[in-house]
């Protein structure tokens, strides 16, 4: 397949625009694992994440004409995957943006242990949808608060608050996990 397309992304793009099935398969094989990881970070259930990915690929192939070729094709496709996941979360149920009045979680004694010993997906799966969406868009996708506000149709202040709460929740979950592990160990 690489011989077929070489490294010429323009050739791949032109063939995708012609709805070439071989080019579509090549693009799918190249990106499916990565995009499924992205989809899974938004949607906890693997089956539902795969459904989102199917719809996203269909949209990518259908609307490939609208990609002007200015940026990266994979980046453009990834945005479609993310949008599809967000639409799925919104359609599934009403998303409540929580504004909890909690004291910031501070456990500085364990800050040094934070760095390498955790499973990110397990932490993300325990976040509420609203927190998860804002956190992922900001941290993983690199959106600004303005972009997050536009995408989720919330205010910028709400976006900032949600991000702060999400980070706090993640840390809390992490330390709770660590404590249970220590207790089990001893």
């Amino acid at each position: 397949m690489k011989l077929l397309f070489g490294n010429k992304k323009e050739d791949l793009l032109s063939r995708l625009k012609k709805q070439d099935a071989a080019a579509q398969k090549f693009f799918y094989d190249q990106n499916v694992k990565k995009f499924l990881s992205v989809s899974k970070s938004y949607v906890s259930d693997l089956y539902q994440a795969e459904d989102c990915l199917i719809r996203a690929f269909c949209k990518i192939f259908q609307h490939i004409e609208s990609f002007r070729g200015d940026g990266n094709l994979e980046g453009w496709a990834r945005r479609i995957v993310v949008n599809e996941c967000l639409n799925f979360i919104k359609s599934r149920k009403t998303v409540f943006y929580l504004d909890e009045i909690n004291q910031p979680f501070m456990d500085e004694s364990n800050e040094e242990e934070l760095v390498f010993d955790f499973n990110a997906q397990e932490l993300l799966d325990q976040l509420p949808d609203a927190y998860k969406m804002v956190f992922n868009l900001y941290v993983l996708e690199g959106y600004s608060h303005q972009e997050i506000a536009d995408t989720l149709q919330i205010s910028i202040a709400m976006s900032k608050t949600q991000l702060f709460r999400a980070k706090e929740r993640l840390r809390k979950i992490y330390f709770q996990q660590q404590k249970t592990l220590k207790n089990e160990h001893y």
Partner: protein
Amino acid sequence: MNTIKNNFENQIRKQIEEREINPSRDLWSEIQNHTQNNRPKSKLNWLLVAACLILLFSLGSVLVFYNKQKPSEVQITEGKTSSGAKKVIREVVKESPAMVLQDVKKKDETKNTEPSENLGAPEAVVSRDNKKLPVIKENTSELVPVIIETPPAKIIAQTDSAKVPAGRKRYVDPSTLLFSVEHKDAIEKTKGKSNVATIDLNGK
């Protein structure tokens, strides 16, 4: 403190970015199904068009082949009457556009021209008229003259009937004329417009 928090976020980002998940099912087939269903269907059903073309070609070839097979074929149809004495030969000339089969009167005329030779021989009637006229087909069964058989004992033919050919005559035999005048009451006209005299021999 901030660097540690950033490390925490970076660690999450790094893990998600580097992660690759294999699909648990065949997603490609489902994507293909979706894309094929969403593709605009052409208005023409090409299978239907192909079937129509094949049908047209086959019909055309059959017609051409059928026409080539019988260019100027002479078809002889033998129709036997109930007695088996009469035969009708019909010549069908395909290339000549006009063909009219004449009725029985015309047959009699042709018979009279060749009296002895045509006796017992099949009658052939062919008429060629203007070529531009359309072909007129007539049912051969209508052309066969009706023969009414009467019991031979009751029919008295003319005295010199043996000399006269079997076909109808255009002239009147004097003896027949005399007989017809003398036995006017006994002469009857049949459906075939032939005069038949019936005499009861037992009565005399």
